[in-house]
């Protein structure tokens, strides 16, 4: 194996390389963390996409350096790509069907199902308007949001 042969000579460089990868991984983790606590989360889709990209980058680093795939021959593609594609396929195929189920909830289910938190947010709005005497109904804000 190539890594074994080269490892003998440049052990130091290898260690250095691993430490560099380590630093990169820590940095990427920090990025995810910062994004999660940043205003970017307002547009959730974008934030999620960035975080997933960051995760993929981390995965790539781990696979290619720590798992030595960088130094392996072409078999690595045969072994890794089908599984990754297949797993993606599974998720992608499920999303339009199962992932959008809430659109087809029956009335009976809505009786028990959890509701969008817009309604929850109304509590605060309603509270704000209700600093007066009695709890004021939410109608106004409710009809706004729908």
């Amino acid at each position, binding site marked *: 194996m190539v890594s074994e042969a080269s490892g003998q000579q440049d052990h130091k460089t290898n260690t250095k390389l691993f430490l560099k990868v380590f630093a990169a991984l820590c940095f990427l983790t920090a990025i995810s963390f910062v994004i999660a606590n940043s205003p970017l989360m307002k547009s959730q889709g974008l934030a999620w996409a960035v975080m997933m990209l960051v995760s993929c980058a981390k995965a790539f680093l781990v696979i290619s350096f720590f798992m030595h795939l960088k130094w392996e021959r072409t078999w690595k593609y045969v072994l890794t790509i*089908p599984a990754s594609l297949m797993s993606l*396929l599974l998720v992608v*195929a*499920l999303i339009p069907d*199962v992932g*959008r189920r809430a659109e087809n909830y029956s009335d009976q*289910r809505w009786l*028990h*199902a959890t509701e969008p938190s817009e309604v929850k947010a109304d509590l605060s709005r309603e509270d704000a308007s209700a600093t007066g005497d009695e709890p004021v109904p939410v109608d106004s804000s409710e009809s706004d949001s729908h």
Partner: protein
Amino acid sequence: MSSPQNATASRWSIPGFLGHYVFSRDHKIIGTQFLFSTLIWGVAGGLLALAVRWQLAWPWSDMPIFGRLFEAEGGQISPEFYTMLFTMHATIMIFFVIIPMLAGAFGNWLIPLMIGADDMAFPTLNMLSYWIMWPAFILIGASFFTAGYGPSSGWTAYPPLSVLDAAAPGSGVAQTLWILGLTFVGISSMMGSVNYMTTIIQMRAPGMTMMRLPMTIWSMFITAILQAFALPVLTAGLFMQLSDRVFGTGFFLPEGLAANNGIQVAGGGQPLLWQHLFWFYSHPAVYIMILPAMGMVSDILACFSRKPLFGYKPMVYSICAIAGLGFIVWGHHMFISGMDPILGVSFMISTMLIALPSGVKTFNWLATLWRGNVQFTTPLLFSVGFLSMFIIGGLSGIFMAATPVDIYIHDTYFIVAHFHYVLFGGSILALLGAIYFWYPKMFGRMMSERLGKVHFFLTFILTNMVFYPMHILGAAGFPRRYADPYHFQAFADLLPINQVMTVSAILLGFTQIIFAANFVGSLFFGKKVGRNPWQANTLEWAAPSPPGHGNFDFQPVVCRGPYEYSCPDADVDFLPQAETPPA
């Protein structure tokens, strides 16, 4: 010479009787263990099927002999018991007969022998893959004896029925045991498949390139890949269903269900998620159940028509195509399940595509027989029987692939006809043929050809008589899994035809006694054979019959493809892949 011999011997067996014959690491012993276990389970599964048929022909009547075995009231089959019968029939036939017999028994026996290896890459793992089946055997066996009626939500175990005890009061603990049992089957299959893949990739004899592999090995290889990729998804689903049942989570349960004795379920889940996870495995599982059969049939057909397999490479590519497409067609089991109809269209198209490689295979088999010097041996007859049945099963599949037609025939007996033609007419017939074919290699003796032909004749006719009329039942709209359809006006006329089918099924069951007698009798009284009784080309016939530990007594060097029959340049009509050194 003695020390390496000892060293190698320890690779296959632990000393002592137990180590030799029970906890052996020799792939041949393990294969035989799989073979015997699955044959026994096959008897159980068959009897369950007969009980199902009995109920359909003479509903609610006392069942002879077996009625006493089940405590059902006075030997009658109760509806709860009936649901258990077909659930267990399917479970046993799929997970304990066909898959382990193909992959476990024949995979184990043939892979090392046909590629010229002394054993599997990991003999201990191989042994474990058999013994991990035993917890599954015990769990499934135990589920018969739990309170209630055994698992009774169908082999597909669709939630919420399979999760809510109140919805299927007969199931109870048995359903949990069923899930656990299948988990063990999954672990066993996973162990087996990584082992097979490693062996086929790394342990081929010199000269045995991938394009010189016999079709059997190709199909086993692809099957192993299918198992490795598809099964974990089912395992994940099984764990989720287990936790729904045992811990009260709600992965597959929607809110506000009325069927749980008033106990509120956690909710938030999606019943359809299970169906997706389940079919993501179980559709490829259909190919796991047919591909190795196809591979073995290819070998048998080529051997007995004394003719090279027609279009070897297209055959290989179509196996790969079937496997590849097999992963993107699972939704065709769910056309009317409430799945997004647009998603249904994409699944329909991929399903139609899969008929293509299957068609190529069928025509290539026909072309292999064409202008061949056909030897009418029992294995050949079974293989042609397979071909004849597979054509019917394949063609009826087109009805289901057409989504609008599927609206009408989904979950009717048309489906039952279709998959029995593929799985019984296809896989089981091919398996019987394979047993006749490789029996001399396994046990060093021939099975009786005369009995074998009688067995084939009756089996073939009766199989058609049992399953062909199911198409007509399906066209009449008769739903499957009905204990008694005759109170529906529309299905009241179905009784006589069901009775014909049941009588045929019982006779079919009796016919298998011929096979059992032949199988057991030949173990002791069969004609002893040499290495290559069928004059076949593939490598296993170059090894002694039966092969000892380490399989080969010489170093096989492969110099040609597996199907060099009737080569005009040769004196004899076969050219083995590797020359056996003169004794």
